């Protein structure tokens, strides 16, 4: 079935109604076509915009994503371009609008849900794990729903504006989880996620959104980065470091230090997709280096390092020359004060220390 969105809603629900596809593109999604470098945030905005243009089935739901453009302004101007039936400002009801997205997916649409902060995905935990994740298995059809939003600490956001949510969903078969670390990947992975027929949780680290040093010029042609494939960030022969998100950048710093000061060669894999895990890439590397460090910003106990350690035991134990180790946040809620939060989060010096320990092992 093919859909055409009808004219803007009647006035009694939407004073925001705007003519459909007549207003110019918002400026922040035009950088790539103008050959300019984009930030992580702009890459995401471009992916959303381009997918909405490419496929009339794609639409967005979330709090304040319309006229305001979302808490981080990712969708600024979208409502003028696509109208208020494709950019839906929702009541504050994460479960309700995520459930509604599931219904829309049943009808053949491809909803992209924004959580204002990913911390607020938790009221939707039930509908995501029990309904969305299980739909295909239960025989109720595919669930091409993407749930995206800002995650991560370091911004003095306190316990409810700083969480990483991957491990809330990692244990749920049927979901995919994506967590990019660069503008290129963010755009390509988000496009892949939108085109994927499985539900995808898509995490965007706030600390990357506008980081100027990450800006890069992206291909002008359409591209996707396939889900489920890790990226080799740096080749190395002595230690494998598996990480993702913000920690990719800290790990690169640490690896440079090790190379420069210790002459130790660290290979870095950016997982990009956390579920399903790219076992092959991890095993390949571990079989070559014999040493593995997992670094994640999320808290320690029950973090993804455990699953990776288990799989390496299952698939590459004989190649290990040292214990698999991890660097992670401490087991606590995310504290607000700068002193506390910096202590809470894994820092570059932690990675350096862990790598040195492994190198000497």
């Amino acid at each position, binding site marked *: *079935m093919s*859909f*055409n*969105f*009808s004219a803007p*809603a*009647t006035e*009694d*629900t939407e004073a925001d109604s705007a003519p459909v596809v007549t207003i110019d593109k918002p400026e922040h999604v035009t950088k790539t076509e103008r050959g300019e470098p984009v930030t992580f945030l702009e890459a995401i905005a471009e992916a959303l915009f381009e997918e909405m243009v490419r496929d009339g089935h794609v*639409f967005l739901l979330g709090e304040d994503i319309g006229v305001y453009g979302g808490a981080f302004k990712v969708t600024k101007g979208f409502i003028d371009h696509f109208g208020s*039936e*494709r950019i*839906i400002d*929702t*009541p504050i*009801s994460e*479960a*309700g*609008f*995520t*459930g*509604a*997205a*599931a*219904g*829309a*997916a*049943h*009808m*053949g*649409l491809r*909803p992209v849900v924004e959580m204002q902060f990913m911390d607020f995905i938790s*009221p939707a935990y*039930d*509908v995501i794990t*029990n*309904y969305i994740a*299980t739909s*295909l*298995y*239960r*025989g*109720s*059809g*595919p669930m091409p729903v993407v749930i995206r939003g800002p995650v991560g600490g370091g911004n003095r956001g306190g316990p409810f504006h700083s969480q990483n949510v991957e491990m809330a969903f990692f244990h749920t*078969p*049927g979901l*995919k989880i994506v967590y990019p670390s660069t503008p290129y990947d963010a755009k390509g992975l988000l496009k892949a996620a939108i085109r*994927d*027929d*499985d539900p995808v949780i898509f995490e965007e680290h706030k600390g990357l959104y506008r980081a100027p040093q990450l800006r890069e010029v992206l291909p002008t042609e359409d591209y996707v980065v396939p889900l489920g494939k890790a990226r080799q960030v740096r080749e190395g022969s002595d230690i494998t470091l598996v990480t993702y998100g913000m920690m990719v950048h800290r790990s690169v710093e640490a690896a440079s230090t090790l190379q420069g000061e210790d002459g130790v060669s660290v290979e870095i894999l950016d997982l990009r997709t956390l579920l*399903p*895990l790219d*076992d*092959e890439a991890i095993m390949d590397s571990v079989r070559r280096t014999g040493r593995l460090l997992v670094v994640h910003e999320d808290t320690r106990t029950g973090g993804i390092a455990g699953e990776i350690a288990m*799989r390496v*035991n*299952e*698939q590459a134990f004989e190649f290990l020359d040292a214990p698999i180790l991890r660097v992670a946040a401490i087991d606590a809620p995310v504290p607000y004060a700068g002193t506390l939060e910096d202590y809470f989060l894994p820092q570059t010096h932690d990675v350096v220390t862990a790598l040195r320990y492994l190198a000497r092992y």
Partner: protein
Amino acid sequence: MNDPARADGPRLAADLGKSDLLELYEYMALARAAEDRLEIMLKQGHVKGGLYRSLGQEAVGVGSAFALDRRVDGTGDMIAQTVRTTGAIFLMGGTPLQYFRQYLARSTGPTRGREANVHWCDFRKGLLGPVSPLGTMTQVMAGITLVFKQTGQPRVGLAYAGDGQTSTGAWHEGLNFAAVRRCPFVAIVQSNKYAFSTPIRLQTRLASFTGKAAGYGIESRSVDGNDVLEVFEATRDAVARARDGGGVTLIEARTYRRLGHAQHDAQEYVPREEIEEWERKDPIGRFRERMVREGWALESELDALDVAARERCEKDAERAIQEPAPDAEEAVQRVYEGLITSVPWTRLPEPTPRGAAI
């Protein structure tokens, strides 16, 4: 009865003709016959897990679904069914055979044995099967009807809930979403006095669930849920309003759950007289009596429908009983589109943990 205007013969009641009225009766009888037959299968050991009946509530599902534009090509109205709306499932085009296969977890069933009771979908017939967590389906149906509106399809969605479900945050968020977006949505609250063992007064302070509608700025109506024509008329109005862009209506259908929550509930918390009182208000008995009294049908015509329903269920039940369970190995399939979940490594021909990899 997709279009009353096309019905043959004179209008007898609620703007319906004789064939319509007979159909209403037929589907209530079919629901009851199917559930009766299922109970036998449970006692015979064919059904595992809970068995939930709509006994005494058949008029709600049948009367309301009858007001919908029912099609089998995926372009009609939709319902979010529950275990208390067996008749609505059949009226939409679901069959007793599907129903039995599902309850018996057969490989031929609509979910190939993955899910239980009425938890199955058939989008072409407009059937949205539930999950257990209460309230979810109101959210999902809100999204379905959002799409009807977004894309200008003249379709309506109807979601059933129990009195207990209205206490859930999920129901609140779903209904409010539909109300704000003015989705073509009809919410029916089957107020049947209990949620499992919990009486309504421990669920809400309201005397009538129409009071809930006031919290969402939507229309509402309370009907005698054991009067199939009253349910039909109220739903028809609500559906017409929804299709015309008038938004959401909440219908309270006052009825009674004459058996326990499920087969394993001995209903000890209910006074015997209460059940007896409602036996006298049986929706099928009442409708039969009225049809005969008003001269809309002969006893013999209704008897024939009863017999046909029972025979059909008997035949379908026997068939479902003979059919096979799903193959065990299917358990790993369709967790994801195009990915197969790994078989446990301990069951590989040559067990090795490396085989555990995806």
